[in-house]
């Protein structure tokens, strides 16, 4: 089981250049809105034709511009979940699901998929009579029913409610364990992708900027753009001050840096909102301590988000603390606060 993709395509002023290779590993594709995620999947599915390159699925050449091969979408066995579902409006959910299932197996397949996606009671409704989330479930069931070799999910959970999302996600992960094929999932939810698979591809402006182990990429996203995509909320340009000391220009502070910092390479520094710690003791030897003002507090069910203003600069640090910890007692807007940016949590970055 393997999928090799190495394609180029230009549409309008947008230029796509994707290259990756998976082998019995699920691949998550992370990228900003408009970065070319859907386009990549469409090329694999055979809906869009790349300008050049090759796509090979399990030793079957789906596309090869040099050999002039371009397998029709129908024969590719590439299940693609359209971002807007593309359900057939004139068919009931049942008919949609069974559209590509041969007569003899319809009952079995229908029962299996309807149960999997909890749509037993909706089978006689047409797409216009289904809610957004219900439509998505029917679309997923339809793809599963067609038994593809590679499953490509374009934001599969965006329209599901959180309960459903978690439920279907887990169930899908379980089902997919037995799924004998490649799975690609496009998402801009780093949480989803983090849970999803081991491998991650990060796309930016049509280019694959990073490919690798998800943990490594989350810990060390290398590029500023990748850091933003993996959810790093605080990023600043840096200037070297002395050995092991840099100035974070956008935050207006100087920082002790760790061993990973390389002067010639790194131009930016980042820290995740979760990693900024509040300092409440008067201890002196805490490194990278900073005082500021709480500018804004956003309360979430289990977390508190704060925007912290540095006295010296207008720039703002974003900080997340779990609710209920002693560390966030007496937090109030427009009150002073002391935080620290632990050197081991700093991420060193460069621009592409």
């Amino acid at each position, binding site marked *: 089981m393997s999928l090799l993709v190495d394609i180029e395509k230009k549409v309008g002023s947008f230029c796509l250049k994707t290259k990756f290779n998976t082998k019995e590993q699920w691949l998550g594709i992370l990228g900003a809105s408009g970065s070319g995620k859907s386009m990549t999947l*469409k090329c694999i*599915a*055979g*809906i869009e034709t790349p300008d050049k390159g090759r796509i090979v699925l399990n030793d079957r050449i789906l596309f090869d511009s040099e050999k002039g091969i371009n397998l*029709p*979408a*129908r*024969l*590719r*066995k*590439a*299940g*693609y979940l*359209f971002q*807007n579902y*593309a359900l*057939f*409006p*004139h*068919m009931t959910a049942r008919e949609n699901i069974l*559209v*590509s299932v041969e007569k003899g197996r319809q009952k079995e397949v229908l029962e299996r998929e309807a149960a999997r996606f909890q749509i037993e009671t909706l089978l006689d409704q*047409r797409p*216009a009579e289904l809610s957004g989330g219900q439509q998505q479930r029917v679309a997923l069931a*339809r*793809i599963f029913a*067609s038994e*593809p070799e590679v499953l490509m999910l374009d934001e599969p959970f965006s329209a599901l409610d959180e309960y459903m999302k978690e439920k279907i996600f887990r169930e899908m992960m379980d089902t997919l364990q037995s799924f004998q094929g490649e799975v690609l999932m496009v998402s801009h939810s780093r949480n989803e992708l983090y849970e999803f698979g081991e491998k991650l591809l990060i796309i930016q402006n049509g280019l694959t900027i990073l490919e690798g182990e998800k943990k490594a990429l989350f810990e060390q996203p290398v590029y500023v753009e990748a850091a933003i995509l993996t959810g790093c909320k605080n990023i600043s340009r840096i200037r070297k001050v002395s050995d092991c000391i840099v100035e974070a220009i956008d935050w207006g502070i100087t920082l002790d840096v760790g061993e990973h910092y390389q002067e010639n390479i790194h131009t930016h520094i980042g820290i995740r909102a979760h990693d900024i710690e509040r300092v409440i003791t008067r201890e002196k030897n805490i490194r990278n301590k900073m005082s500021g003002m709480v500018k804004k507090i956003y309360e979430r069910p289990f977390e508190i988000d704060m925007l912290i203003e540095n006295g010296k600069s207008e720039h703002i640090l974003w900080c997340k603390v779990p609710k209920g910890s002693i560390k966030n007692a007496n937090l109030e807007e427009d009150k002073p606060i002391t935080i620290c940016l632990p050197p081991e949590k700093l991420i060193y970055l460069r621009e592409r």
Partner: protein
Amino acid sequence: MDISPLLISLKTAVIAIIITFFTGILLAHRVVVMKSEKMKTILDGIFTLPMVLPPTVVGFLLLCLFGVKSPVGKILFQSFGIKIVFSFAATVLAAVVISLPLMYRSARGAFEQIDENLIHAARTLGMTERTIFWKIVMPLSMPGIVSGGILAFARGLGEFGATAMIAGNIAGKTRTLPLAIYTKVSAGDMEGAWFYVLVISLVSFIAIALINYISRKWRKFYK
């Protein structure tokens, strides 16, 4: 009043619409999936031709093509003993040729209005082009197809010029309602003419109501 024109017209129009319906849709589909825009325009032109020529002239051309002296007519007659001119088959032939452009063009318009994403989705689900056509494209283009069907049926029912030329005007055999109306008018029998006008209007009304009803049931989901 002689009702044979009604029966002949009904038989002709029904057989003709069946032929026209499927042929028109087939042609339209072929043209829509075609890549070359030039080719599309040329075929559009050819298929629309029977509409710009006076029906009598179309009839004349058909006569040249299918007359017993023509190669086609000769072969048909000598090999199969089929003589098309002045037969019932000729009324059908005339109606089909004259109404085909309507079905073709309407179906083409309808096909072109479908959201392509749905076709893509169908392909990735492994459906063959044939299945896609019958299960997705056709139902989704229903409103346009129905329009085409109504137009083609009406035109076939009302066909006169080409029919008169290739099928003649033989009472009880090839005299359709339009020919009967024409004959009555020519003979100055206005009462008889009005009667047939009423009959043909009624037939067309009923047919349209029927088509509308069936198609409405079929695409109720759509709203």
